[in-house]
């Protein structure tokens, strides 16, 4: 069932409407485009015209930011229904969401908020993912969050929590390497330990994005997952580390704020594609040997 729902093993880019003309002007060295599902839930207009044109030319990844899968309260059925219609309309190669919550008592916080990792929250998140996968009739991908605080109630390490969710529900994982770097810097972990423990065999997509150092706090470094800068060098290094262990995986470059011109963004995707090419070559050498 899952073979129909896979992204091309290449570098993709988060689509910004400001780049639409540039992207359509020529064939781009990009394997897929990813959009935030919530931006395409209107009835018609330019947003859908853009998405239709992209979908005709490239593989599409739908990335949700508002489903609040990590909420202890019930999922928003209306929102889930909108997602189903969007998936039916565009038949994306992948749908992904976050291990986080963003709504409570009907208020939407427009942020990805942390949840404690316990057997109780694990059961709840698994139940929500089952409901989403049943509704969308496809396995989804779940993304590791970027963290700013640790929660004293957590009893399960994040990597184990994600592995268990994936095993119970059959969902794939979206590994955001920048989030790993940010969380480890903020909470005092080692990114290599996190990645070496991560169930990389379940990873169907990688995210790369930029972060910045919060200038207000000089005593303890605070990294913000702001997606407003190029991918940082240590994050590229971690990405290469993942590819060396796991082989090539579809990879998305995200740049959502202070969006640069298209050539600048494309260069980021080309760097990722270069590392993917390297990983492919290594894999074919290994299988030939």
């Amino acid at each position: 069932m899952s073979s129909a729902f896979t992204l091309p093993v290449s570098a993709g880019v988060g689509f910004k409407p400001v780049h639409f003309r540039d992207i359509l002007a020529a064939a781009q060295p990009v394997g897929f485009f990813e959009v935030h599902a919530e931006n395409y839930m209107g009835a018609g207009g330019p947003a859908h015209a853009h998405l239709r044109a992209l979908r005709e030319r490239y593989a599409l990844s739908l990335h949700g930011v508002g489903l609040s899968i990590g909420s202890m309260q019930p999922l928003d059925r209306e929102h889930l229904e909108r997602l189903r219609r969007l998936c039916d309309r565009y038949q994306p190669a992948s749908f992904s969401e976050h291990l986080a919550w963003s709504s409570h008592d009907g208020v939407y916080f427009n942020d990805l908020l942390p949840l404690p990792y316990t057997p109780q929250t694990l059961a709840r998140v698994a139940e929500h993912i089952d409901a989403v996968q049943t509704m969308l009739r496809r396995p989804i991908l779940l993304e590791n969050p970027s963290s700013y605080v640790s929660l004293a109630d957590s009893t399960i390490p994040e990597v184990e929590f994600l592995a268990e969710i994936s095993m119970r529900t059959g969902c794939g994982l979206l590994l955001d390497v920048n989030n790993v770097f940010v969380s480890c810097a903020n909470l005092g972990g080692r990114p290599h330990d996190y990645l070496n423990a991560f169930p990389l065999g379940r990873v169907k997509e990688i995210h790369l994005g930029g972060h910045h150092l919060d200038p207000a706090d000089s005593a303890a470094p605070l990294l913000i997952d702001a997606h407003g800068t190029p991918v940082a060098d240590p994050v590229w290094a971690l990405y290469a580390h993942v590819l060396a262990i796991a082989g090539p995986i579809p990879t998305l470059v995200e740049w959502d704020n202070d969006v640069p011109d298209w050539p600048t963004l494309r260069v980021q995707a080309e760097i990722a594609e270069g590392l993917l090419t390297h990983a492919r070559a290594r894999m074919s050498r290994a299988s030939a040997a």
Partner: protein
Amino acid sequence: MSGAAPVAFQAIFANALLDREGPIPAGLGAPAPADPRRRFAVHRNNMIASLLQTLAARFPAAAKIVGPEFFNAMGRAFVAAHPPRSPMLACYGDEFPDFIDAFAPARDVAYLADVARIEAARTRAYHAADAPPVSAAAFAALPAEATDAIRLELHPSVEIIRSRHPIVTIWAMNSGERQLAPIKNWCPEDALVVRPRLEVEVRMLPPGGAAFLLALAAGQPLREAALHALAECPHFDLTDNVAGLISCGLATRIIPAVVTGQPR
């Protein structure tokens, strides 16, 4: 431990995000010397900063008129009173114009809410359903005696904003459509917002035009709609207005008159 069950933890966390001056939830940690309050502030800031950005993107002319400092102060008050109820942020701020009307510090800028009404309508038009407009040829093909009794279905994106102020002129001057200049003839203007194809348009309606379109939108036939317009403006010209309406792509369907006295 926070001591709270996960569902209570989320309620406490959510309340602490909304009550920006209040204490942070128990059980939040960060490695020393980091301050958990500073870390929680990242989440408080993510919410308010992104929503202010959303409002500024949807209401750029209103923001330009009052300046970023005033706009953000007004935006913070709005977010506190009307936090988003849906993850579809394209609709966020539908209540903003009414909020501005009631926002005492903005009372001196009497036209601000109506400028915001044009901007709110522009976003709704941007996302409205697609519908191909009726062509001038299709309209011209109607027998002359039939036109009085027909009804017109207007494009789903159509909105009309009536104002006591020169609202279209003010909007145009603050969105780069026209040069900023003193407005010598301060008179009421009615705005039409429509997206016949992919471009959202804002137009100034001629006298009587708003009454005419509102009557058509309410399902009245051309003749009755024209009477409404004439009651407001004795110089209302039906032929000109219908021609304008068709050429602007406002109509998506011609609904012929129901012939009475005939078996159905």
